[in-house]
């Protein structure tokens, strides 16, 4: 029974982790920017989601609408990506170190904004997931809210696959990622595509943050805690790969759940031991590709 509970917790963690890292991977895959703000966007989504749901409840909104309200608030918070991308645009084409420094600057600024708007104390929504009840299968009990979040992550994975692999917009995005200058010469507005991709990636991060808020407190430690795990996912799955984000999130989610159960003091080390093994055995991760 403990094993099933552990696996369930791992998959819930993996679902949220996938959403955030899918955004990070999408942005790197197209724009070649390692977006350190992914953790900050996750925290922003959590704080904003908590505030929006509190406001919604104060207006007499039904708690049953928790999930859609959080998703909408996450999508709304993700619009901050417009501002971040607009500033990042000034360092496109420059050395990657500039882009990394710029996103790091945003991490520091986000930290102050979060502190200024929501204060230093963690914010908790309370036991809201219980409004969705539990699913009992034999001797096992699963919170339905967590199942819905996992299902949402699967839907997002499917939608991302469809968008990138099956639509003309996705083909243009892939071509832009591969050779932006040629795509531009064939009529693709790469500036708009970069904006679109960055905002979509940001929204994945903020939705991930919003969805996690009913199960954990929003705090100023969220960005760093998330980025530690997200980068493990990226290294294991392969930089720029959405499939890699999916598998990497499951691996990191399971590793984290196992270490929290058996060696809580070694949580980060256990994850990064696997990261080192992957870096040595497959430097480009499970699904990553070597740079041409």
């Amino acid at each position: 029974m403990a094993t099933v509970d552990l696996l369930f917790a791992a998959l819930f963690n993996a679902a949220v982790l996938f959403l955030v890292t899918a955004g990070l991977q999408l942005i790197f895959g197209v724009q070649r920017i390692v977006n350190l703000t992914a953790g900050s966007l996750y925290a922003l989504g959590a704080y904003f989601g908590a505030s929006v749901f509190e406001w919604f409840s104060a207006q007499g909104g039904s708690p049953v609408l928790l999930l859609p309200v959080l998703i909408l608030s996450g999508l709304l918070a993700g619009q901050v990506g417009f501002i971040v991308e607009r500033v990042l645009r000034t360092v496109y084409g420059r050395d990657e170190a500039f882009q990394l420094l710029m996103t790091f600057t945003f991490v520091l600024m986000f930290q102050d904004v979060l502190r200024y708007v929501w204060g230093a104390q963690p914010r908790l929504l309370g036991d809201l997931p219980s409004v969705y009840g539990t699913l009992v299968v034999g001797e096992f009990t699963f919170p339905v809210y967590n199942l819905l979040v996992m299902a949402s992550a699967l839907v997002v994975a499917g939608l991302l696959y469809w968008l990138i692999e099956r639509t003309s917009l996705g083909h243009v995005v892939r071509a832009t990622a591969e050779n932006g200058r040629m795509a531009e010469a064939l009529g693709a507005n790469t500036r708009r595509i970069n904006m679109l991709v960055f905002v979509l990636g940001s929204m994945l991060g903020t939705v991930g943050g919003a969805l996690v808020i009913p199960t954990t407190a929003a705090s100023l430690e969220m960005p760093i805690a998330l980025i530690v795990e997200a980068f493990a996912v990226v290294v294991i799955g392969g930089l720029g790969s959405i499939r890699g984000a999916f598998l990497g999130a499951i691996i990191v989610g399971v590793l984290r759940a196992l270490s929290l159960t058996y060696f809580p003091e070694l949580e980060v080390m256990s994850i990064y031991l696997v990261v080192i093994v992957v870096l040595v055995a497959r430097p480009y991760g499970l699904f990553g590709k070597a740079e041409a």
Partner: protein
Amino acid sequence: MLSVERLSVDIAGTSILRAISLEVAAGEIVCLVGRNGAGKTTLLRALMGQLAPRAGTVLWHGNALAGLPPHEVARRGIGFSPEESEVFASLSVAQNIAFGTWTRPSRERPAADRIAFAYEVFPKLLTYMTRGGAELSGGERKMVSIARALALDPDLLLLDEPFEGLSPAIIPTIAAGIASIRASGRAVLMAESNVQHIPDYVSRIYVIERGEIIFHGSLEAARADPLVRQVASGLA
């Protein structure tokens, strides 16, 4: 249709093109001949908006092109096939060719018609539509690159060294393709360094040397010009 007046382009402070003037009329095939490094590619890239001119004007159907980003130039009806073909490896042949129909949709010319015409010019492409862009030979990449630019439905096609590096067996196929593009009423401005490759059907040629146009006229006149013969000995 295309009118270039005293166009000058610098790259990293070095003057690459100096006061280039040329014209391309509707339905013409104009060839820009010059040695490697003479400035042919720089000129085509400047026309596409990939390089900003230092001076001069580029008029397209009477409207200035200078300052427009490349995607706006493409959407105004100028297609481009670069020297290295630059076929998207992550897309199939069919997706490469359909690209311009996504970025420049048109009610007057439906995507299906434009794609059909691109395959009409290079029917061989129909046999490997599902193949990935990375799985093509040099000649196949060149055909895809030209067909892809054609599916944009341009009035003018800029072809940078369309025969460069190709096996002699494929060159007649490319030349025939360019001839059928002309037959459709489109204009072509092609850059060429190997004068042996200049098709007989070109309307006019410009010879470029060290960033300046040193000759403009027919292929026959170029062959008779001593200065041109000195620069491009293959014309003799």
